[in-house]
Structures are given as structure tokens and as C-alpha cells.
């Protein structure tokens, strides 16, 4: 029974991890290529979720909803890039932080203006709902398995994109040397818009996918944003591989910590107090993980040493 529980929790951790990866991948790409700290990434996640909820409500199709989420987030991303972000590439990190924080305010309250203060409805489609039985007799929600699958597929796709395509070469060149790729005749501002929109689309996809099993509401992006930052910092900024490893670490730490730390404390503490202490420690666990990684490797696991 305990083994089954552990396997199930590990699956949960992986599922959480791959969703964090979708967020973190865009964030790390944008930082790696453009050197931009984008706090508004969480807002694009929210845009994706709201677009999906709205389209699903209007058409009843989950697939259309996902497409809408990708499109809406990519469009919002491209728009913001052209209107605001473009002016920030040369600015200090601090200015970027303030500007993208301002964007969060505008996105969040703007969304509330349009959709109202109450959460929206978005559900898992019937063909993906319910549990399936895995080998070993674990009943596990089909939808979550699908999420893991999509996450891994996106990770592979991104790997293919950066390692094997022309765009990928440009992206990697952009990370190393902006003047160089400009000199090679690549339209750098178009490349930046493209990368930003790609990152935004991934965030929007994550928002829509997660929105189906969570609450689609204003402000849903910020907690995920903070965790996504934790992920890319653990992995090393600019590294897609690092983002993937970081996401898995954070997903597993958060999930397993939340379940097993209270149980651990119960071994030598009174039950109620153990639950409390364990839970407090669990909620800090991700941050403890991050600080340990950074103290050990100040540029993250796969980061380039400064």
C-alpha cells in the first residue's frame, strides 16, 4: 500500500513538475535570449486560462479551447513585446522588474474588468475525465497522465527546436552574442518577438491545461510565476535542460514534502503538532531547496558561471 502511495505521489510530483516546466521554459528562453526578467509571464498563463474557459464555454470543445489559449497568449505576448517589452531590453533589470510588475497590475485588473470578479468554469473534457488503472492497480486520473505526456512532448519539441532547427540556432546564437546574429543578417527584433510569443504561448497552454483542474481566476498566475522563477534559478537561467530538471525537482519536492514531512514528524511528535510543523516545513521546502542549490552552485545546476 505504501509503495503504491509513493508511486502515485511521484506521478503527482511529475505532473506538477511538467506544468511548471511549461511556464519555466518560456521564462528561461526569454531571459536567456533577451536578458529580460519578465514578471508578467504569470499574466500570460492567466490569459491562456481565461481564453480557454471562454472558448470552452462558447463552443464546448476542449481542443478549440486549448488552441484559443495558445493563440490568445501568443498574441498577448507579441502585443506586449512590441508595445512595451521592446523598449526594455537595454534597460537595467530593475526597470524591467518595475515595468513588468506594472503589466501584471494592468493584466489582472483588466481581466477582472472584462470577466468579473468570480472564477470561470473550465472542466476536463469527458473523454479525458475519470481515473484509469495503471499496472500495479493504481487508479490514477487519466487527465493528469495526459498532462505528463503533453509536458514531456513539449520538452522534446523544445529540445528539437533549439538543437535541430534554424530558429534554434538563431536562438542559441542570440544567447551568446547579439551583435553576432545581427551581423549574420537575422532580423533580431522579429526573432525577439517570436521568442517572446513562443514563451507566452507555452505559458498560456499551461494556464489552460491546469485551469481545467484548478480554479480559473484573476491572480492565478502569480504563485506559479514565483515557482517558475524558482525553477529556472535552480536549473540555471537560460538553460532549457536546467528548467526541466529544476521543474522536476521543485514538483517532486513540493508534492512529496507536503505528504511525507508531516508523516515523518509524527514518528517523534504528537500527531497534531507534527502535522502543523511538517506542513510549515513543507511549505518552505521549495525555497529551502533553492537556497541550498544556490549556495552550492551559485549559478544554478546548469547555469554558466558568471
Amino acid at each position, binding site marked *: *500500500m505504501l509503495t*503504491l*502511495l509513493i508511486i*502515485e*505521489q511521484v506521478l*503527482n*510530483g511529475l*505532473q*506538477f513538475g511538467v506544468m511548471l516546466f511549461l511556464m519555466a521554459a518560456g521564462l528561461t528562453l526569454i531571459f536567456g535570449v533577451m536578458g529580460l526578467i519578465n514578471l508578467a509571464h504569470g499574466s500570460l498563463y492567466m490569459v491562456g486560462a481565461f481564453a480557454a474557459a471562454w472558448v470552452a464555454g462558447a463552443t464546448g470543445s476542449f481542443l478549440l479551447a486549448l488552441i484559443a489559449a495558445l493563440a490568445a497568449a501568443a498574441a498577448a505576448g507579441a502585443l506586449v513585446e512590441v508595445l512595451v517589452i521592446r523598449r526594455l531590453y537595454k534597460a537595467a533589470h530593475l526597470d524591467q522588474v518595475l515595468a513588468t510588475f506594472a503589466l501584471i497590475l494592468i493584466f*489582472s*485588473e483588466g481581466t*477582472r474588468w472584462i470577466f*468579473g*470578479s*468570480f*472564477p*470561470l*468554469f473550465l*472542466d*476536463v473534457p469527458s473523454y479525458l*475525465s*475519470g*481515473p484509469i488503472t495503471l499496472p500495479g492497480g493504481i*487508479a490514477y*486520473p487519466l*487527465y*493528469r497522465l495526459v498532462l505528463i505526456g503533453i509536458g514531456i512532448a513539449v520538452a522534446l519539441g523544445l529540445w528539437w527546436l533549439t538543437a535541430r532547427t534554424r530558429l534554434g540556432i538563431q536562438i542559441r546564437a542570440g544567447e551568446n552574442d547579439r551583435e553576432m546574429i545581427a551581423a549574420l543578417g537575422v532580423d533580431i527584433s522579429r526573432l525577439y518577438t517570436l521568442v517572446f510569443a513562443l514563451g507566452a504561448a507555452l505559458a498560456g497552454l499551461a494556464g489552460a491545461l*491546469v485551469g*481545467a*483542474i*484548478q*480554479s*480559473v*481566476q*484573476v*491572480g*492565478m498566475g502569480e*504563485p506559479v510565476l514565483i515557482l517558475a522563477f524558482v525553477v529556472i534559478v535552480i536549473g540555471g537561467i537560460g538553460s532549457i535542460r536546467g528548467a526541466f530538471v529544476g521543474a522536476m525537482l521543485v514538483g517532486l519536492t513540493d*508534492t*512529496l514534502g*507536503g*505528504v511525507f514531512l*508531516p508523516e515523518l514528524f509524527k514518528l517523534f511528535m504528537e*500527531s*497534531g503538532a507534527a*502535522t*502543523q510543523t511538517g*506542513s*510549515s516545513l*513543507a*511549505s518552505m521546502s521549495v525555497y529551502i531547496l533553492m537556497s541550498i542549490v544556490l549556495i552550492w552552485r551559485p549559478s544554478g545546476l546548469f547555469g554558466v558561471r558568471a
Partner: protein
Amino acid sequence: MASKTRLGCQNREKTMKNVLLATAAAAVMAAPALADIKVGMITTLSGGGAGLGVDVRDGFMLAIQQSGRDDIEVVIEDDQRKPDIAVQLADKMVQSEKVDVLTGIIWSNLAMAVVPSVTAQGKFYLSPNAGPSPLAGKGCHENYFNVAWQNDNLHEAAGSYANTAGYSNSFIMAPNYPAGTDALTGYKRMFEGEVANEVYTKLGQTDYAAEIAQIRASGADSVYFFLPGGMGISFLKQYAGSGVDLPVVGPAFSFDQGILQAVGDAALGVVNTSQWNKDIDNPTNAAFVESFQAAYGRLPSLYASQGFDTANLLISAVEAADVSDAGAFRDALRAADFDSTRGDFAFGSNHHPVQTIYAREVIKEGDVFTNKIIGKALENHSDAYAGECKM
């Protein structure tokens, strides 16, 4: 600037007319002019928790408007769900607006930050929602009235309902913060069965896969959870998809009108406890539900009913006494001589309601998810802290 308003914000035109009518009537009858009373409402109108504050405000303003009184001035401010902003606004209400009565706070932590200080300064505070235990027990105050409930009430009712439903082994869960601890304590206070496991989740957590796996492994025969706002939506959707089919019980917060539509089918059939529902059979309630829908184009929520009742309590006191005579005004509030949407309404010794709490079930009416009362979970229930209150 404060939005100084005597009217609901949504339907300014309509209420303008009402005020004109009311003034005209007053002139004709030449009624003796009562002293103006100023009410400060601090509530959450922006950010994630805005839905609750908007409902309280709308319910409150609806009652003020229906009363036709133009001698009650309401100053509304947004606390952004931040305690320090709430304190600042309370200072403003007291120092600058010089209000007589405060109301509106949704969240317990904000109430704890504001209420003790404003009541100490001689102002009245009428709580339309938050009812933290310290304010019901040792920290109670003669100028503090709670029109909604003491925080533990709905949880106690859930425990009591679980007994009648024949559950004997519950898995219980709440976020790791004081209201969460209170919730599980409240449930355990009334529940006579075993507790299979007691889990505290992270505040603001959105994924409950891990907890659901624990539920599956726990061997419990029922699940009790207190996860307000988006947390509850997430949990219910994920629980419905998990294949675990233990019956779920919760307090009304996760099944209220505002968020029920976002939960959807996942909530159908779940039993939850509430002191109010739109099908409570009395004329005040029927009129409230109808007029709220007419005014705002949506079904009223629990919070709206609390806002509405709070305003009516206030109006009843204004009618009976002058606010400058604090003693008389307090007695008038204590008498609670108003028509509540809940039927009969009375305060206990600690100025918290003594009321019936219902078990209700989530149903679908046409396209709209809503609740139906299926029985009484607790009757004429007070709270566990009244004994500690020395007024």
C-alpha cells in the same frame, strides 16, 4: 477620494429615483428628522478575493436603498485584502470621515487587525462575514456585533451533519493557517466518529493530487474539507476526476453561488452547511432573492445575504435609537429587531448569532448550479466561546 455614496454603485440611476421618492415622502409626512448616521464599509473590492466583498457591498446597499432612508451615509473603501491597508482605512474612517459604525470586512485576519482598535475607540462594528474566535470569546466587545456567524459554526454543523449521515471515519483537511485550524477543531468538536487523517495544506495551494492520494489510501468513509475560494474549486474539480468516491462534506464557502458555476458538475450532490439559502421559506428572503436578482442580474450569494442582513440590523437600530446615545443604540442592535433573510434572528450573550444551520445539497436548476436545503444540521446553535466572553 473615497467613493462617498448613498447608493449601490451598479444601479445609480434607479436608486437616485428612489432617494428622490423617499425625500418627497419625508417632506409630505413631515417626519421628524433623525440625526444623520455615517457608516464606513471596508471590504475587498479588488484582486483575487473581490467577489466576496462585492457581494457584501451589493447586499448591504440593496437594503439601504430599499429602506428609502437618506439619513444613512455609507463610505466604501477597498482594503485589497491587505491587513495594513485595512488598518489604514479604519484609521481614516475614524479620524477623518468620523463614521459612527464600521462594517464590511471579509477576512478574519483583517478583522483581527481592525476590530479591536475601532471598538476600543468607541465605534460600533457590525461584521457581515468574518467571525474569528478571539472576538467571540475573551476578546469580545460590547460594540462588536457579528451578523454572520462565529467562524467555527459551519464546521460544527458539518460535524453534526456527518453524525446524522452515519459517517464514522473522516478524512479532514484545511489550509495551514488559523482559520484552517479553527475549522478542523470545529468539525471535531461535533463529530463523534474517528478522524482517519488530519491534513493541513499550504495556503493558496492549487493542486490537491497529493492529498487526494492520501484520501484514497486513508480508509476513511467521508471527507471533510475547508478550502475557501479558488482552493475549493481546484480541490473539487480534481477530486471529481480522481475516481475516489467517498462522500464529501464542506462548509458553504466552497459551494456558494459565486463560485459554484466555476466548479460545475464536480460539486453536484455535495452536502454543505450554511445558515442561509435562497430557498429558506420566509417573505423577507423571497423578496431579497427577487430584488437582488432584479437589481444586479445574478443570484444572491451567502455573502450578499449577510450584507443585506447587516444593513437591516443597522436600519432597525437607527429607527429605534440615536447613534450618539451609544447605550441606547447598543441595546437596539442587541434586540436585533429586524426581518432577517434567515427568519428569526437573535444574538447570544457575546453578540454572535444564535441560529439554525442547514445542510444543503448542490443541485442544478436549468443551467445554473445552486443549493437546496435538505435538513437542519444544528438548531439554535450558539458558539463554543460565548462562555469566555465577559462583557
